[in-house]
């Protein structure tokens, strides 16, 4: 049956460079001397560390616990000793550090006790908790916790489950090799996901430049006897592997920015994620390794099954990097991120370590002015007008940039790829987005500060008022008391005092004030020493100095006119 496919706007056709790394089967990697496992590897909250330096951990043991609404656990990739739980450089362009667990492998690679689960007999919520604690996240690059996506929409079921095997980025072949070598296991993972999502049909989208993968998946479907699952070859055009673009190609549905695809009856997972779900459910193995393509400036590009936390240079060494290597890129040449060093660890998001050199990926020619030729708009898979967004981003007119749907940009790089003026358009959009986020954070905290400041003023005002009222009430009561006493006494003594109640009232007031002042004096005398009992002599000296300053303060305050 030929399925009707849809087109997405734009897209480009860069050189795919995929054949080089698919000649050899997936290889394993010898244990490194040291694994650096960042605790925060997925979208969502930072997992809290569950181990301490000196602890012995087993392979698959949880070392970072999920924290908060959206968070995913992290596990030891092999058995060994925890050397440190400390800040380590993370695989991110910024070169910043993040809390990581550093493990020295003991060489035994011994698994901890693994807990399996039968997905058909387990309630969905428990299943999701299980996957969260198994650390399963999207392996296509977005690393969104999978458990959070394995929830059908409001209707309790889904029309289409899309499995993303498009792998449109040049050089990367880890999904291709997974589909070639592990199709039947991957398929079992897909069947489990279909069950959890109650999906009617499953479409596995694979770019037509991977005929072996298509054939392998189709054979696996046939062998399994499952129905309603189809492997669909789609035209090769970058970025067909973008989740939104792939959903569009297979179903014709466009999921807008900021909306959930389940609202449209679709959900999309990467093939690698399907495989790790299989591993977690069937064998109880948490996500501790993944397939990584090593390609680019190496003599033997290849795919490896790599433990999370393996330093990249340890891995790249196996593929024979050429001497002029000057950078590692995590991901492909279109969307990959430049690594701050060679020893950063492989993480769950690492689908490819692209080894680069100045000759392989030369710096772009000088940036010329935009001539508004519209090539970028023609290439944009999100139907945006990048040259307009560029103009507003460049002039830091962020409001306008947002009006032109800056946040619908998926940063696929097509615009920069085609620009005849060699403008790094995506850099401008990344800049604008991070600037807008930062301003929103600042505005939020400023608004919060303003509210709290105003509330404090209001509260102080209210307290003052309440105090004044209380005082007034008390004064009235006392005056009454004094007056009745005063009136009683003279009335008993002689009648002369009776016609002059006023002075007696004045006396009463004076007495009141004096009493209050005495009380205040006492209070004041009490305050300072109370706080400073049992202190070291030098601190007491400090306090004395401060007290002196404080006593001087009212005098200063009196000089300043009220604002």
């Amino acid at each position, binding site marked *: 049956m030929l399925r009707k496919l849809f087109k997405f*706007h734009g897209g*480009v056709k*860069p*050189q795919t460079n995929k054949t080089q790394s698919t000649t050899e089967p997936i290889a394993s990697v010898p244990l490194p001397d040291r694994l650096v496992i960042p605790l925060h590897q997925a979208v969502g909250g930072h997992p809290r560390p569950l181990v301490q330096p000196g602890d012995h951990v087993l392979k698959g043991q949880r070392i970072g616990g999920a924290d908060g609404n959206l968070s995913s656990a992290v596990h030891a990739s092999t058995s060994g000793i925890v050397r440190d739980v400390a800040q380590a450089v993370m695989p991110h*362009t910024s070169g910043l550090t993040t809390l990581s667990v550093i493990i020295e492998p003991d060489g035994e690679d011994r698994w901890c006790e693994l807990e399996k689960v039968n997905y058909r007999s387990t309630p969905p919520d428990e299943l999701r908790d299980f996957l969260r604690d198994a650390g399963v996240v999207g392996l296509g690059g977005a690393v969104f916790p999978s458990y959070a996506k394995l929830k059908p929409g409001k209707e309790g079921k889904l029309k289409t489950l899309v499995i993303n095997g498009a792998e449109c980025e*040049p050089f990367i072949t880890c999904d291709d090799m997974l589909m070639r070598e592990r199709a039947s296991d991957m398929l079992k993972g897909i069947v489990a996901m279909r069950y959890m999502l109650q999906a009617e049909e499953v479409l596995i989208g694979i770019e037509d430049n991977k005929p072996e993968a298509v054939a392998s998946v189709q054979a696996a479907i046939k062998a399994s006897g499952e129905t309603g699952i189809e492997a669909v070859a789609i035209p090769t055009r970058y970025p067909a592997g973008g989740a*939104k673009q792939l959903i*569009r190609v297979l179903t014709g549905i*466009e*999921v*807008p*920015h900021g*909306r959930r695809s389940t609202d449209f009856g679709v959900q999309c997972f990467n093939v690698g994620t399907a495989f790790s779900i299989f591993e977690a459910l069937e064998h109880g193995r948490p996500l501790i390794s993944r397939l990584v393509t090593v390609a680019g400036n190496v003599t033997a590009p290849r795919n490896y099954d790599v433990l999370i936390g393996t330093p990249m240079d340890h891995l790249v060494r196996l593929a024979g990097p050429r001497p002029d290597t000057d*950078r590692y*890129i995590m*991901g492909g*040449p*279109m*969307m*990959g*991120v*430049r690594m701050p060093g060679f020893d950063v660890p492989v993480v769950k998001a690492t689908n490819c370590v*692209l080894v*680069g050199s100045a000759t392989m*990926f030369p*710096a*772009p*020619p*000088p940036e*010329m*002015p*935009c*001539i*508004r*030729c*519209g*090539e970028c*708009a023609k290439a944009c*898979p*999100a*139907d*945006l*007008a990048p*040259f*307009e967004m560029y103009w507003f981003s460049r002039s830091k007119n962020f409001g306008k940039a947002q009006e*032109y*749907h800056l946040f*619908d940009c998926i940063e696929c*790089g097509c615009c*920069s*790829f*085609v*620009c*005849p*003026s*060699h403008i*790094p358009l*995506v*850099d401008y959009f*990344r800049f604008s987005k991070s600037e807008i986020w930062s301003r929103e954070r600042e505005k939020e905290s400023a608004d919060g500060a303003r509210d709290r400041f105003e509330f404090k003023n209001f509260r102080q005002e209210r307290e003052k008022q309440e105090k004044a009222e209380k005082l007034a009430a008390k004064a009235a009561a006392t005056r009454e008391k004094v007056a009745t006493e005063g009136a009683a006494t003279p009335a008993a003594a002689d009648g002369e005092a009776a016609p002059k109640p006023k002075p007696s009232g004045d006396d009463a007031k004076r007495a009141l004030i004096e009493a209050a002042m005495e009380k205040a004096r006492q209070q004041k005398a009490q305050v300072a020493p109370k706080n400073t009992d049992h202190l070291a002599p030098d601190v007491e000296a400090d306090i004395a100095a401060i007290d002196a300053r404080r006593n001087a303060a009212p005098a200063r305050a009196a000089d300043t006119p009220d604002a």
Partner: protein
Amino acid sequence: MNNSPFVRKAASVQSVMLQVLLALVPAIAAYVWFFGAGILVQLAIASAAALAGEAAMLAIRGKPKALFLTDLSAVVTAWLIALTFPPIAPWWLTVTGTLLAVVVVKQLYGGLGQNPFNPAMAAFCLMIVAYPALMSQWPAAGQLDFKTQLDLIFGGLRQVDAITGATPLDALRTALRSAANPDSQLHGLRTSQLMDGPAFGLLGGKGSEWIALGYLVGGLWLIRQRIITWHIPAAFCGALFASALLLWGMRPDAFASPLFHLASGGAMLGAFFILTDPVSGATTPRGKLLFAAGAAIFTYVIRSFGAFPDGVAFATLLMNILVPLIDMKTQAPVFGHKKD
């Protein structure tokens, strides 16, 4: 070191401009064939003036000369000026026009990519207002040999009125106006009869209609090369044809035929090479259609009722003014926000 993407398509402003220049070659060949090699001299003068003006301005503005002179954008402007000015315009007219375009209309607005108006058309309009006579004298096809043309360009004695006439477009309009006048000899003649003279060819002007065909061929090649899109040429030709058809259909004796309009003056040059200038033109697909249709209607109105021989230049400038508004109002819905 740069960020992703780390690979790029081999594309540059220079290659875009070079292809535009190549696309002008068929029309230039036809020009030379029918009107002699004088146009080549004009092209050379304009190119030299444009490069000199651009170089001087780049030096003053502290911009890298090698980078911007080799982008060829100044040469494209120069060629468009040479092709729209009369081939026998004196050299200083071409030089002044070119300098105006490059220095004032382009560089003073910020150089490449920053000019709100099409430099060649702005220069044409300024010069036709300043030198209406010199800008309206065109030789007929095959009328002047190369030496005479050189004399005229480099300032021998000018008795241009005696040897040259107006463009066919101009001539026909003058004739049509006379035909409408009861006192004129031409009174009562039909358009087809008026077009019987030596200046007219099959559709437009003799010779000039072949140049128009050259522009068409070059323009279609540019579409094939994905340098320009079909929107602007199609909308311009369509709207010009439709407006001409409307009035011609009502009064064929008083107005020129739609095909005459398409084949004459700057229609083809405008449709494929001038209005398609991305810097000063509309950029959204719907915007391009509106922009070009507007330009066509202005062109037709100016040609039929205005005081100048051709309307393409003025129409271009008028529509250039509207480009920001058109672009803003015709932004296409983005992914996921389409209504269908």
